């Protein structure tokens, strides 16, 4: 989310897509998990990705982040073709990811979890061998205060409850200042009162931190409220795309969720 990225400048054709997949296909043996899927995520959007269990949502995410290599098709991030890049390089180029199950570094303190998440400086040896500077510490404090966990900075992250770990993971994602943040079921396992906070956090990340957000979600109320547009996958295929209102009334979507083919 550095200010110098101007998506319009990224693509001379004026394509404002910061993330796009073209014909991405992923097969596991005889099963086509993701089938010729096109996705366009424009700068500043919050995009939802929904679909029944096993629809290929997480697999599509894995193809985007480079964890899996797509069998066909291409992925571009900020105008660059990243299809064949290794996962760490795509992440460094500005793609953040939150996993479905919470993933924090359990034996490290909460503070260190955030400090290690900062992308600033990349692998440059000087930064790597230096101690975290005051700006980084301040940013850590700021984000921990933001998610209301500032009292727990020096506690081992593995001690925290599930919901707290989820917040830590969210703060870690923001620490990296991603251009695009992929979130795999952010509302999963979160209780209703915290859901309101989560919506607020995601909006802030999107507006104040200028992260474009692409999220998988099963909680329909949640995704309908937060997403600008929604993609629907079923059996690996993209069956619908559009604003929440139209998706809600789309017959193909209703059929897919109710199991009518």
């Amino acid at each position: 989310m550095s200010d110098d990225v101007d998506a319009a400048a990224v693509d001379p054709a004026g394509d404002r897509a910061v993330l796009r997949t073209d014909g991405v296909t992923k097969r596991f043996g005889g099963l086509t998990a993701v089938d010729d899927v096109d996705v366009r995520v424009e700068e500043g959007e919050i995009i939802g990705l929904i679909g029944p269990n096993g629809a290929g949502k997480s697999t599509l995410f894995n193809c985007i982040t480079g964890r899996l290599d797509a069998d066909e098709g291409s992925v571009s991030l900020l105008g660059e073709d990243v299809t064949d890049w290794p996962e760490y390089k795509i992440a460094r180029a500005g793609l953040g990811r939150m996993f479905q199950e919470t993933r924090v570094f359990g034996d490290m303190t909460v503070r260190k979890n955030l400090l290690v998440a900062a992308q600033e400086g990349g692998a440059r040896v000087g930064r790597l061998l230096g101690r975290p500077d005051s700006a980084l510490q301040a940013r850590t404090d700021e984000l921990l205060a933001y998610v209301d966990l500032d009292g727990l900075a020096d506690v081992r992250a593995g001690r925290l409850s599930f919901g707290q770990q989820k917040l830590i993971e969210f703060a870690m994602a923001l620490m990296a200042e991603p251009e695009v943040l992929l979130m795999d079921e952010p509302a999963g396992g979160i209780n209703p009162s915290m859901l309101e906070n989560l919506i607020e956090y995601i909006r802030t990340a999107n507006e104040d931190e200028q992260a474009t957000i692409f999220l998988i979600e099963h909680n329909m109320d949640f995704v309908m409220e937060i997403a600008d547009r929604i993609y629907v996958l079923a059996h690996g295929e993209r069956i619908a795309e559009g604003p929440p209102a139209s998706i809600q009334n789309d017959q193909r979507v209703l059929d897919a969720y109710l199991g009518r083919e």
Partner: protein
Amino acid sequence: MSADEGALRRVLPPERVDDFLGACDDYGWLILVASTVLAGTLPLAGLEAGFYMTFVTDLFLFGILALSWDLVGGQTGYPSFGNMAFFGIGAYTTAILVKDFSVGFPVAFVVAGGLAVAFAAFIGVIVFRLRGHYFAIATLGVLLAAQQVSRNLEITGGASGKILLDTPSAEAFYYLFLGVLVAEIALVYYLSGTRFGFVLNAIRDDEQKATAMGFNTTYYKTAAWMLAALFTGLAGAAWSLDNTFVDPQTAYNGAWNVELIAMALLGGSGTVAGPVLGAFGLHSVIVVVDTYATGWQLVLLGTAVIVTVVAFPKGVVGTLREYAAEMAYYERGGMAAANDGGDDPDEDSSPAGGEAG
């Protein structure tokens, strides 16, 4: 929570332990300098060449080996059974250079460290494709292969090895091992507070996540492995001349490799002080048992290890840290902040210890 723990809590309240460990952290450098000065003055204060000087020198040696092992095994989560390969390479390098090529020991010492590092870089690219048990087995294979190679080459003296004469004095080796150990502790202690150190811990806790966050983990793992090889190689380089004898069985000593893993785990894997203290403690026990209970050493040693593991599941330092910090979550508003209806705090019991100590 047993009654014993209640009693322990009264005698040794967690806050006290926390204060103590906090002070150790705050004055880490001071403690290191003071210990170094103390160890440095022992020979001046009457520690003469002989049994006791050899004993203390060996403490330094095992401290180096255990801390090197822990850099990859504890801090990064890759348990190696092949660290002694670096030791053997260091040992043979100095032996061959000094004896056959009449190279001065200081030069041979540096070359030995360099060769161990180069070997680690080469092997690292291969073995770091593996994880967990597979990594452990592969590194054991590396150790056995290295041992076999030196057994069959002419330049290494084959199975009978090499005898080294005209070696430096016991005092010289005392100070050399002390110097290497202090340099290594200082470096690991410093690194544990840098982003490099954080990334190693992140790889240990969740390598997939670390990769997804933009870290080329192979690069970090190999760097840590090369650092471990440097100090292990230097230790081997000094050891061969100090020992005046090097052969495949002792230079590539698989039993030592297991011992130094035990040292790191008992002392507190993933901490700075733990592996060193573990090495001091376990080697002392080994020496005492060897001296006064010959014939029973394996039984007593096994008992000591079992008792320590039961009492200190995360190693002495790691378990103390856990004990000191166990209430911190609640005291610092853990449950107050836990208005998410989430599960109880996990009680995971991964073998790696806590923070640097």
